[in-house]
């Protein structure tokens, strides 16, 4: 008898809900998308919009109060020499950091994508990801010690009788300084270190998708390895390089901790925003400054698209 009985399924509340949703896939999709859409729409885009709005207000120089009236005066302030210098300095630093990251990351990513197998691949991921597990602040302070006048680099240079070289590098105009930790060179080195995983991983992902028979086909058609690199591998890795450069470029554009801890006292955009909205209480100008990286990134992506960097995608 027990074999023949079918179990009568009890209809609970959740059963009815799932039956209802199964019959109405559109309702289901809306329910799934609602929380993230609310988050992105209200919290993210909303606050971005509020920020944008702030940049069209201005600060009354005498009272120090924000004048809630539409004006382009704050943006005009951005064009003052001191502010333009901040923007130029930050963009130049970001561009150089991005370039250095790309040059250093490419061979690493290439090795990982083409040659690393099994445990070497695991080691690669560990080596690239592990720095991301430790605190950003700890890493930057560690670099401050490494680069300091009493730090390990000075010590090694002394041991190798290369102190003269270090001194000569520090004596360079603009990028030099009293020590590496108080120079643009130091800021640059720390930025490259901090952001390089964000360059390696997208390039590696792009190279993984280049089948080895493209490289064989290129060689088969007479291309030497160098020609194959520039005509096949590099163009196909370009979307990955662009993706990586979006990370390194925008992260450097907006960062204020690295230049505060390692570097000379000249401001970058992030620091300008920090001081303007804090001690100075000039939220409109701070907002206008934050719009700058957004505009630059928008322009950068537009250029990349025009140059066909995403055609392969």
């Amino acid at each position, binding site marked *: 008898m027990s074999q023949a009985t079918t179990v009568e399924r009890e209809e609970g509340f959740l059963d009815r809900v799932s039956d209802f949703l199964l019959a109405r896939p559109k309702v289901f999709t809306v329910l799934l998308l609602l929380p993230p859409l609310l988050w992105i729409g209200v919290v993210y885009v909303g606050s971005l919009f509020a920020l944008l709005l702030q940049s069209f207000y201005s600060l009354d120089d005498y009272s120090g109060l924000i004048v809630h009236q539409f004006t382009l005066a704050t943006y005009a302030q951005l064009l003052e020499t001191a502010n333009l210098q901040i923007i130029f300095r930050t963009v130049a630093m970001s561009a150089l950091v991005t370039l250095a990251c790309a040059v250093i990351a490419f061979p690493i990513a290439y090795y990982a994508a083409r040659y690393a197998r099994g445990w070497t691949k695991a080691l690669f991921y560990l080596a690239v990801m592990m720095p991301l597990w430790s605190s950003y602040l700890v890493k930057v302070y560690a670099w401050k010690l490494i680069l300091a006048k009493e730090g390990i680099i000075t010590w090694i240079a002394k041991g190798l009788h290369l102190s003269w070289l270090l001194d000569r590098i520090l004596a360079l105009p603009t990028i030099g300084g009293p020590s590496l930790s108080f120079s643009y060179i130091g800021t640059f080195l720390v930025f490259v270190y901090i952001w390089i995983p964000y360059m390696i991983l997208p390039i590696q992902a792009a190279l993984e998708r280049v089948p080895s*028979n493209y490289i*064989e*086909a290129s*060689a*088969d*058609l*007479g291309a030497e390895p160098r*020609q194959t690199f520039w005509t096949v591998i590099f163009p*196909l890795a370009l979307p990955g390089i662009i993706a990586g450069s979006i990370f390194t470029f925008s992260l450097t554009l907006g960062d204020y901790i690295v230049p505060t801890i390692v570097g000379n006292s000249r401001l970058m955009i992030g620091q300008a925003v920090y001081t303007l909205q804090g001690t100075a209480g000039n939220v409109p100008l701070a907002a206008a400054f934050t719009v700058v990286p957004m505009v630059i990134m928008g322009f950068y992506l537009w250029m990349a698209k025009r140059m066909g960097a995403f*055609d392969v995608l």
Partner: protein
Amino acid sequence: MSSAVSFRNVSRRFGSVRAVDGVTLDIKEGEFFAMLGPSGSGKTTCLRLIAGFEQPDEGHIEIFGETAEGVPPYKRNVNTVFQDYALFPHMTVGENVAYGLRIKGVARADREAKAREALAMVKLAKYEGRRPSQLSGGQRQRVALARALVNGPKVLLLDEPLGALDLKLREQMQEELKALQKTLGITFVFVTHDQGEALSMADRVAIFNDGKIVQVGVPTDVYERPQSRFVADFVGSSNVLSPSFASHHGGAAKWTSLRPEKVGVYAPSTAAPAQNAHADGEIKMISYQGSVTRFSVAIENARITAEVPAGGPGFEQGDKVRLIWPRTAMVTMEDA
């Protein structure tokens, strides 16, 4: 005699596996040569050895009389049509075809004209502006062919080029490839696991098994006179008769191959003509294949398959029949 490609005792190992094991081979200039074998038999590795993607561990390879060992692919006058075409996705069809010429430094207008010519040859004129992703499988195949041929190779290597195409397209491409090879007069080396393709297209066929060549010959030779059970089984289907069965039914006391289409199915006690052998048995299975009907007949403790053209005798399963075949159809083989 002039060899386009010659292998002398060539071996290629991957770890402990001998992918190619002591292969000696001569491919004549201007011939359509097929390398046939199951997957993992070493045929593709042989092709890659000719292309230069692999280097031999032992032995000697010559391409048109020149030593090939140590010569990288980009310095060899051979071109390859890859199994999955390997068209560059970031270039247009025209740029793909012109790639080899661009690498050689041919001027733009010149190479574009030659690329258009090559595309016209494979019946893809006016396609040069498209991307490979906008083409069908058969069209990509043609682009890959044009891209290889535009360089004027001395040897064209084709790695299972028709494998990804559907039957109709494959048959059409087989004819076109054959015709193309005839007009161009280039040596074609063609790797396939499809025996029908190899037999219908090639001037000569090499059959690979386990890294070794087990038989080389013209298609009729390979099909009609297999030298081993492996070849008899792999090239078409075959009845493999044991030495004792063969000697009792008009053959020699050796392992013997008998092609199913050579065997006729008749009513019992039909008189066999002179120079024919016969055996009596019972039909165990009939399988209708359209153009032919296949009978599986139990004789003593053996099974013989006979293939009879459609519209043949109307036997049914369980019928007693007599199988009759010409003695010349019994081909003795060297090994079991």
